C-alpha cells in the first residue's frame, strides 16, 4: 500500500484499518476490509470500483451516516469524534455530499429559493439584508450556469435531471464545506451534460480549494478529473497513487481488467475476455 508522504499539503481526511461488517455469524459480510487512505486538502480523489466493491459503504462511513466496525477515521490529523449529536452537526458543516439520483435528493415540498436560503442561513447569514441574500443566491446560480430569475418560485421537480444536479452544486457553493463527497454524480446524466458537471466540480476545487472525493465506476471519468485514484475490489483497496501512475502504469490485474472493459475508439475492443 503506497501512501505518498512527500506531499506537503496538510491532511484533511485519513483512515487506518477502516472496516465495516454487516450482519453476524454465518451471514457476515465484510463490505469494507481494513482500508487505509490519506486525502489531502484541496485534492481531487477518485474511488473507483465495480458495483458491490464497497465504495458507497466507505462513503457513508466518511459521512458519518453509519458506524465504523473497526479502525479509525482522522479528520485534520485528529481522531474524528462524532459520538454526540452536537458534534455530528459540527462535523457535517465541514463535509457535504452529492448523490447519484438528483430526483430524490430534494424535498419535493420546498421551493428552490427555500433550498438555497437554508444554505445561507446554515452558514450564519440569517441576519443579512434581503438584497444581499438574493445577490448571493444569484451568484451561486450563475456559478452553475443557471439563471436565478428562472429558478425562483419553482419546485425542484420542474427541473431536468442535469439542472437538478447543478442546483445541488449551487448548494455546495453556498455552503462552502471543506470536503465534498460526490457519489456517482454523473451516472444518471447523459454524456453531454456530464462534461458541464465535471467542469463545475473542478471549478469548486480550483476556486474554493475544496477537497473533493469522487466516487465512480467509470475509470475514464476518474482519470480525466482526479489527482489521485484509489481502486477498490471486494472491500479492499488494491491500488492507489496519482492518476497517471494508476491508469497508465497499472500494476494490479483488477485495474487492468477495468481499463480493458471500457469501450474504446482508437483500438479494437476485445469481447473475448468476459
Amino acid at each position, binding site marked *: 500500500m503506497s501512501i505518498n508522504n512527500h506531499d506537503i499539503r496538510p491532511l484533511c481526511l485519513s483512515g487506518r484499518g477502516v472496516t465495516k461488517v454487516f450482519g453476524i455469524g454465518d451471514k457476515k459480510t465484510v463490505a469494507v476490509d481494513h482500508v487505509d487512505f490519506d486525502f489531502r486538502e484541496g485534492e481531487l480523489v477518485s474511488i473507483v470500483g*465495480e458495483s458491490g466493491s464497497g465504495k458507497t459503504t466507505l462513503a457513508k462511513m466518511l459521512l458519518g451516516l453509519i458506524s465504523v466496525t473497526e479502525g479509525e477515521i482522522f479528520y485534520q490529523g485528529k481522531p474524528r469524534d462524532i459520538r454526540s449529536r452536537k458534534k455530528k452537526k459540527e462535523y457535517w458543516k465541514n463535509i457535504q455530499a452529492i448523490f447519484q439520483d438528483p430526483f430524490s435528493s430534494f424535498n419535493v415540498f420546498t421551493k428552490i429559493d427555500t433550498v438555497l436560503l437554508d444554505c445561507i442561513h446554515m452558514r450564519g447569514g440569517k441576519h443579512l439584508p434581503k438584497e444581499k441574500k438574493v445577490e448571493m443566491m444569484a451568484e451561486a446560480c450563475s456559478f452553475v450556469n443557471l439563471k436565478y430569475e428562472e429558478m425562483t418560485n419553482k419546485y425542484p421537480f420542474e427541473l431536468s435531471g442535469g439542472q437538478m444536479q447543478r442546483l445541488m452544486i449551487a448548494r455546495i457553493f453556498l455552503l462552502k464545506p471543506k470536503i465534498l463527497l460526490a457519489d456517482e454524480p454523473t451516472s444518471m446524466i447523459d454524456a453531454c451534460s456530464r462534461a458541464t458537471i465535471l467542469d463545475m466540480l473542478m471549478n469548486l476545487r480550483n476556486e474554493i480549494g475544496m477537497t473533493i472525493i469522487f466516487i465512480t465506476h467509470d475509470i475514464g471519468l476518474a482519470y480525466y478529473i482526479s489527482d489521485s485514484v484509489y481502486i477498490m475490489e471486494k472491500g479492499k483497496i488494491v491500488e492507489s497513487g496519482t492518476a497517471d501512475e494508476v491508469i497508465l502504469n497499472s500494476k494490479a490485474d483488477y485495474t487492468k481488467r477495468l481499463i480493458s472493459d471500457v469501450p474504446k475508439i482508437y483500438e479494437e*475492443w476485445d*469481447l473475448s475476455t468476459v
Partner: protein
Amino acid sequence: MGKKILEVKDLTTKYITRFREDVYAVDHVSLSIVEGKSLGIAGESGCGKSTLALSLMGYYFPPLHYTSGDIIIDGQNISKMDPDTIRKNILGTEIAYIPQSAMNALNPTQKIIRFIEDVVHAHNPKVSKKDIYDMAKKRFEELGLPSNVLGKHAVELSGGMKQRTVIAISTILSPKVLIADEPSSALDVTSQKMVIKMLRNLMDKGYIKSMIFITHELPLLYNVTDDIMVMYAGQIVEKGTAKEMVFDPIHPYSKGLMGSIIVPEEGTRDVKLTAIPGTPPNLKKPPSGCRFAERCKYATNECKLSAVELKDFGNGRSYRCLIEVEKLREVYKNEH
C-alpha cells in the same frame, strides 16, 4: 445488399398533453435496416430516442398517438394495425423490446421460467411446459447463462444477470428486430461488456436478424453497431456508418457529442471536454428554423428562418444543416 428487414418512412408520432398541446417527439423519421446489420441511435435525454423505440413497436397508448408514416417489418405494414393484433402477432415474434429499466421489469414473486411460459403461451397456447423448459434451457446455455437461473426468482440475481435474463426472455421467440433501449446504462463496465457480448452472440447465431441499439454512450455504439444515427429534438440530424460518424462527424451537434467522450487513455487529461451550451428546444413550440440553431456556434441568421431538410451527400450519408460539408470540415480542422 441483403433483404430489408425494417423500413420506416416519414414516421411522425406525437404526445398530447393535459392542456391539449401537441408535442411531436418523433418528427418525419425515415430509416431502414438490412438483414444482419445493426443501427445505433444516439442523442441526449429528451431527444425522442425512446419514443421512437415505442413508436416502432406500434405501442400507441395515450398520451402517445400515431400521426403519419409507415413501419414495414419484413414486408408487413404494422403502422395501421390495431393494438390487439400487434400484441398477438407482431410483438415477440417480429419485433422485441428491451426496456430501459429492465432490471425492474421482472415480477419479484415469480420464477424466471414463468415469464418464458407466459411469452410462449401468449403466441401458442398449445406448447407443453416441458417443451418450453427444454427450449429455454438450451437457449440459456447457448447464450452463456447458467440454466439454474430458470428456477430462481428475480431478487436472487445480480443487476447484470437480471439484464441478461431479460434479454434472453425477450428474444426467446427469435424476433426479426430487437430494440435495445439503453440496456447497459445502469451497469458497471464488466457487466456492460457481458451484455454486449450476449447481444453479439444473438446476432451471430441468427436468433435475431437485426438490432436497434439506443444509447447516449458513443464509444459503446462505435463498438456495437454498423450504422449510427444522431437524433436531436425529434429529428434525425445525421446518418452514417459507425466509423464515419466517429472520425468524421459533419453536423455541429454530432461534432459536439463526439467532444464529450472520455476514455482512460494517455492524453485524455490534456484535452478539455467541450460541452454543448444550452438546453434542447421546447417541443411544444419548436423553433421554425434549424432546431439546433440556438446552441450552434456556427449558426447565422439564415439558419433561424426556415426549416432545414435532411440532405444526402454520398455513400448513404446525410445531414441536416445549411452549411456546406466541405466548409464544416474546414472549420473543424482549423479548430484543432
